[in-house]
């Protein structure tokens, strides 16, 4: 609005000035000719002025657009409401270590399962040969093992870790939630299941990683220290480990690429992804949509604390 006003004022002032000058020049001409000439000059001047104004105001307009975006964001944020800290810094760090290591492991591991695939050859060539790729794979393995140890200690030693562990255990409610969610998808019921801190989807992801880590790290260590393992165990155990490592790798990769990516990247609510993994926060709006029970719990706790404070 302000931008347009200023534009009009400038335009008018300049317009008057030009008109006066033109009138002086055209004083001696016959009226029809003078009118035609005046009309042409007016049009030309208008064009010139608009061009100049465009250049002069582009900076202003960029600024205005920024302010508008800011306002929109604030408006949206108002709608979204307060931000709730869902994952603490420790947990986010674990997730980052894990996804980095898993990406490394998949990129360097899959070529061994599908050596005929064109990309496999590219990856191995890019890394400078199979020797290098095996070293990089072991670096990834080291990171995953570190993550596993870190997470186990986190689960045992921290309050948040212990609380989340109990909340992650599957229960009867999850079975009901699955049933209701499917009914909701099919349009049989308008109500979405009301999830607590962890929905059955998140619980599945969590325990899938648990299972995957146990299988992959266990069999991977067999393959890594084959000579030492074979000192105590027969060779076919190594073959079993190899088979497990190879098959579970495929299962984990598919689950991540199809299931996890759909849930956190490709589904229309999230596309192309959120920064939850970075700041660990969910807005009130998202909490209400996805974790209503947890939100209620938090709000109830707050109300109780506030009440306690006023009582005192």
């Amino acid at each position, binding site marked *: 609005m302000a931008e347009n006003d200023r534009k009009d004022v400038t335009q008018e002032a300049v317009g008057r000035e030009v008109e006066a000058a033109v009138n002086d020049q055209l004083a001696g001409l016959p009226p029809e000719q003078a009118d035609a000439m005046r009309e042409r000059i007016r049009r030309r001047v208008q064009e010139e002025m608009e061009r100049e104004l465009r250049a002069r105001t582009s900076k202003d307009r960029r600024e205005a657009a920024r302010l508008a975006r800011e306002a929109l964001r604030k408006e949206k944020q108002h709608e979204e409401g307060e931000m709730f800290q869902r994952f603490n810094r420790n947990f986010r760090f674990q997730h980052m270590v894990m996804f980095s290591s898993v990406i490394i492991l998949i990129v360097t591991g899959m070529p061994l399962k599908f050596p005929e695939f064109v990309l496999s050859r590219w990856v*191995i060539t890019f890394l400078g040969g*199979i020797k290098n790729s095996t070293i990089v794979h072991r670096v990834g393995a080291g990171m995953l093992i570190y993550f596993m140890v870190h997470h186990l200690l986190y689960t045992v030693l921290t309050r948040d870790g212990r609380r989340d562990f109990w909340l992650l255990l599957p229960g009867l409610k999850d079975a009901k939630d699955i049933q209701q969610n*499917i009914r909701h998808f*099919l349009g049989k019921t308008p109500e979405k299941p009301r999830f607590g801190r962890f929905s059955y989807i998140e619980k599945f992801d969590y325990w899938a990683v648990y299972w995957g880590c146990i299988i992959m790290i266990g069999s991977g260590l067999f393959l890594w220290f084959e*000579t030492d393992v074979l*000192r105590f165990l027969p060779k076919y155990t190594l073959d079993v480990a190899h088979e497990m490592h190879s098959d*579970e790798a495929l*299962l984990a990769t598919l*689950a991540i690429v199809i*299931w996890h990516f759909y849930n956190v990247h490709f589904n229309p609510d999230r596309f192309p992804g959120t920064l939850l993994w970075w700041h660990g926060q969910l807005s009130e709006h998202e909490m209400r949509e996805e974790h209503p029970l947890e939100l209620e719990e938090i709000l109830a706790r707050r109300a109780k604390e506030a009440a306690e404070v006023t009582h005192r």
Partner: protein
Amino acid sequence: MRRLLLAVVVVLLGAGVLAGPAREAGAAISLEKCTLCHGKPEFRKLLVDGHIRELYVTADTLKGSVHEKKTCTDCHFDVAEIPHRERPKRVACTHCHFKGNKEGAPQSDNVLAYFDSAHGQAIARGNPKAPLCQDCHGSHAVMKAKTPESKVSRFKVAETCGRCHMEIYAQYKTSIHGVMLAKGVGDVPSCPGCHGEHRIFKHDDPQSSVFATKVSEQCSKCHASIAIMSKFGIDVEPAATYKESFHGVASQFGSRTVANCSSCHGVHDIRPPDDPLSMVNPKNVPKTCGKCHPGASANFAVGKMHVDAKKKEAGIIYWTATFFKWLTIGTMLALIVHIFLDMYGRTRRLRGEQ
């Protein structure tokens, strides 16, 4: 005096006129002239290193060879004097065997391949021990490779190579391939079967057909063929299982240090696994594996080596593979169905349906 002078002139002229044809005759020394000396059985030369060079040649020497109709100087064309002033040069087969020769001598590009090969390169560097054509194909008894008597025939070529590569030939002769060859089995490889005929390179030359990364391909030519292997009751599975194993995959990606067929089974001394001297005999497995896996224990030999997880005989490995197969199918099916239901629900709500 004048008569004498005339006589001298006439004699000189005559000598000049006669000298031409006489030289022609000398260039094509007849067989008879050669056998004058070479036809004596005791005609030989004692060399400074104590070796004896047999020089006995008769009219029958070329009989039965492809050069039956040639005479000595067709190949030994540098011999013009008797006795020879210098030792005649080694015969150059390319004198006739070049493309478009008038003689109609057969020529393939094999000769070019030979010049690139380890042997040809050694000759080019001036190694006097390196073999020329005649060292393998025979000097006088040159026969087509298909003729059983030929020095390069299927059953004789190993012996020919063994003239220089003695230790390897001795190893080969006791290997399963060598033994079967001696029994007259034509399917087994002798030297050219793996190393190639003219394109022979050192095993550490990437062009070689037995370069580390190409060994399995070379063995698979026969060992992956049911048609050949069924004759001997040998399984073709190991060729495929090797390719799928880590060793095989790493080899396909160009690793030269990872185990290929011959790392475990041997190179020239390949023996069947039940032979106690075989590198893959269970008793020798720890030692064989230990070449790359230091400290390999006897447990390396417990369980099938070339195991195919897709076959029921693999036992626990098969059941592991089957379990994971169904686990993957089941899990992914459930997850994908969930995703599609979710998308279906979203579409419904977008359309405004409940």
